[in-house]
């Protein structure tokens, strides 16, 4: 295989790894935030939940930042077109995300009930909204988004803000929220004890079972949707723009790869297995394995989406021939080579020291200590 083509596919896979890391690590923290008011009944319980992820949320959040940076570096045209096209949605995502670090650092520094109540609402919004948007964005990618380009690749988005929250996108958004809630609940169950952990387990398994239903509905919906097919294009191994291809919308095309290569059904099946086993394991008080099942659930959901779209990343519903694919939105070979080099060195390093950080902070959160520790969240 040619080097450039190989790099393109590698970076498509790495994009998946990043989106998975983001979904798992940030999603977990978001889930804790969204469930704070649901399973944490007292101030101390809520603080216990926050301290369960307290030493790690800062690091976890970098998956989000790295996700943005890596899309910028590896798929600049996706970064440019998606971030500007989905403008209001991106702003809502951003605004809810930037309130979260402040809620973390500042919540427990002021001991009034009203202040902490405000902070808890911020956690709810900044946990739930980004995950809904994350899922809804994926849902929109599957359907295509109305945009087109000028001769110099200046992009124009021609849809409305509300159309980004269509029924399918909302379904995808709620699925994403449920998976995040499951992961957050599993982490809470791992790190806490007693009634709080019990509530986390029951809420978490409920979220997993809702996710199963939503994922199944989404799959059925996708089968009947219009997909996109590249009918004429430049050799994928060559550098190109979205101005030199033709694309057609074909009903049922989103499942074309599954029909051609049935073994691919393993991927969505992995998602179902992860959700079902995750829900059950949480119920029988095995939160750590349940958490790992959640990772498989995310893998299945994101993988199934990626396979449906391949080789598209962001199809255009208004001018399909200007759809963004892996081939035409990716960086140059030289950039990809350098980025690959950095990733080979640093991604394992990140995984290693992240695991080490979790290892150092292992064990249940000591609720008694929280009140004495002036640094505790």
């Amino acid at each position: 295989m040619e080097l450039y083509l190989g790099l393109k596919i590698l970076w498509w896979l790495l994009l998946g790894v990043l989106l998975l890391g983001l979904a798992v690590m940030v999603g977990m923290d978001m889930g804790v935030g969204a469930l704070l008011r649901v399973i944490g009944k007292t101030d101390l319980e809520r603080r216990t939940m926050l301290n369960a992820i307290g030493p790690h949320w800062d690091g976890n959040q970098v998956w989000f930042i790295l996700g943005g940076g890596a899309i910028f570096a590896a798929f600049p045209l996706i970064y440019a077109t998606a971030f500007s096209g989905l403008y209001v949605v991106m702003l809502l995502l951003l605004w809810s995300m930037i309130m979260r670090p402040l809620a973390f650092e500042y919540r427990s520094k002021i001991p009034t009930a009203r202040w902490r109540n405000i902070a808890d609402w911020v956690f709810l919004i900044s946990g739930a909204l980004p995950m809904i948007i994350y899922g809804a964005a994926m849902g929109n990618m599957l359907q295509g988004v109305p945009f087109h380009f000028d001769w110099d690749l200046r992009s124009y988005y021609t849809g409305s803000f509300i159309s980004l929250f269509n029924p399918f996108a909302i379904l995808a958004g709620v699925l994403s929220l449920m998976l995040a809630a499951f992961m957050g609940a599993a982490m809470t169950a791992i790190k806490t004890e007693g009634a709080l952990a019990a509530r986390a387990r029951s809420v978490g398994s409920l979220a997993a079972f809702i996710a199963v239903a939503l994922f199944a509905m989404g799959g059925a919906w996708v089968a009947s949707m219009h997909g996109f097919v590249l009918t004429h294009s430049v050799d994928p191994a060559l550098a190109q723009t979205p101005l030199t291809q033709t694309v057609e919308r074909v009903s049922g095309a989103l499942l074309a790869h599954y029909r051609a290569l049935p073994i691919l059904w393993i991927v969505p099946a992995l998602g179902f297995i992860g959700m079902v086993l995750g829900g059950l394991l949480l119920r029988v008080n095995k939160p750590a394995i349940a958490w790992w099942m959640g990772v498989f659930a995310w893998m299945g959901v994101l993988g199934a989406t990626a396979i449906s779209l391949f080789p598209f990343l962001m199809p255009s519903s208004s001018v399909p021939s200007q759809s963004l694919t892996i081939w035409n939105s990716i960086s140059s070979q030289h950039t990809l080579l350098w980025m690959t080099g950095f990733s080979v060195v640093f991604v394992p390093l990140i995984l290693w020291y992240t695991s080490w950080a979790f290892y150092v902070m292992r064990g249940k959160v000591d609720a008694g200590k929280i009140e004495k520790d002036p640094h505790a969240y």
Partner: protein
Amino acid sequence: MINDTVVELSRWQFAATALYHFLFVPLTLGLTVFLAALETVYVVTGKQIYKEMTQFWAKLLLINFALGVATGLTMEFEFGTNWSFYSGFVGDIFGAPLAVEGLMAFFMESTMIGLMIFGWDRLSRGQHLIVTYLVALGSNLSALWILVANGFMQDPQGAVFNPITMRMELESFSALIFSHDAQAKFVHTSIAGYVTAAIFVAGVSAFYLLKKRHLELARRSFRMATIFGVLSTIGVITLGDALGFIGAHAQPAKIAAMEAMWETEKAPAPFNLAAWPNQDKQENSWAIQIPYLLTPLLTHTMDTELPGIKNLIAHNAERIKNGIPAVEALKKLSSNPNDAAALAQFKAHEPDLGYGFLVQRYAPNQDVSQATEANIAQAAQDTIPDVFAIYWVFRIMVALAFLMLAFFILAVIYSLRNEVEKHPWFLKFSLWLIPVPFLACEMGWLTAELGRQPWTVYNLLPTWMSASSHSVQYMVFSLIGFVGLYTIFILIEMYLMVRAIKQGPDQHDAHPTPSSGSLGGSVLASGAAPVHAKALIVDSTNKEV
């Protein structure tokens, strides 16, 4: 069609959010290094006071860090949301340092900061020290990669335009990261952060010395900040000089604006100590000059000629004329990448492509082929940034730097004589100096980025072309959103910072407080005595409902 108002609003939004973000960055850069130094002393000497100092300054760092992270997210998004043409055009080069920053630096910093705060009881002394070092290393490496990215905007190195993909592409990674501008600016900026932290620590310590509280911690902190500060301030001024030297070669228009130099003077040119630039008349209404000083100051020689603004405009008009065919050729290549004649035309005019883009703003129908002589003249005027603003923000920055240097020299003298506390005016001066480094950093940002105009990427991509094609309503909406949120944020941050400083270090060893009492007690202490029962988190709320 590109809308002027949208571009203008995008610029305001970027400046507002970047300046705001940059309020928190320098302190983080410096305090993390300061903490590493403090903890080293703790580990080496084993003195408990240094552990308390480390923990206290870490508490303040964290309040600042939260907003730095939050507002940094905005920056990461903003290129895509508001500057999408820029992102597509140079993302192949500009995105890489941002991604590497995440991979190499920010991930480490953020993971380790959690351990730094919560790991005291779980890590050995040596391990904890390493964690603190990694936080400092991470924050400074972050600055390195961000400034590599910024260096590309100031002086684009290691990139070439690819007419097939219609964008700039990376040609040499080493040229990108070893760009002189990026390297000098990295050192200048991170050391500016050390100065900021030194002033901050000295100011807060002076507050305690004035109030006669936490004297042991305050004295030692003040002394360490003095050493840290005097070295850093000398460093920041030295590197600032290096940046001027580099800028004289790479960005002549910025340098000419910084010095309000309208005419090309015979070397050695005079230095405008103070002047009142008038851009319309292209002259200084008045100026106080020091003869011969400018040339050696900028070029470190006596005989290098520095081009004046009028000459630069005339020269740039020629470049615009030469750039127009490059843009026309690109348009043809866009629909047919195999058009050999167009490619040849493009290659012949490629060095002036950016200048060809410049005239698009004024050309009829924003089509460069229709550009008239008048349009070209107008675009050529644009190649000079706002002289008055740059001249003065630069001077304010330099003046503040020398003010801080004077402060630290005085602090060294008083420290050596062991009489810092004998001069209350000096302690007050120290306290009131806290805003100064922040202001100086902002002025530095303005000098660098206003001076870069009219380009987002110097000589390559005009700012006017770089913005996203949004409606004015969208831009007003987002600007209002940011201003509103950020105002709330800074109020909360200042409140918490002042509160944490007033509370001082945790003296849990000296005055053990019962766990429930500490909450109620601190509410009472902060002056909220007559609170309703509901507003207090009392023990009963900790029981399950």
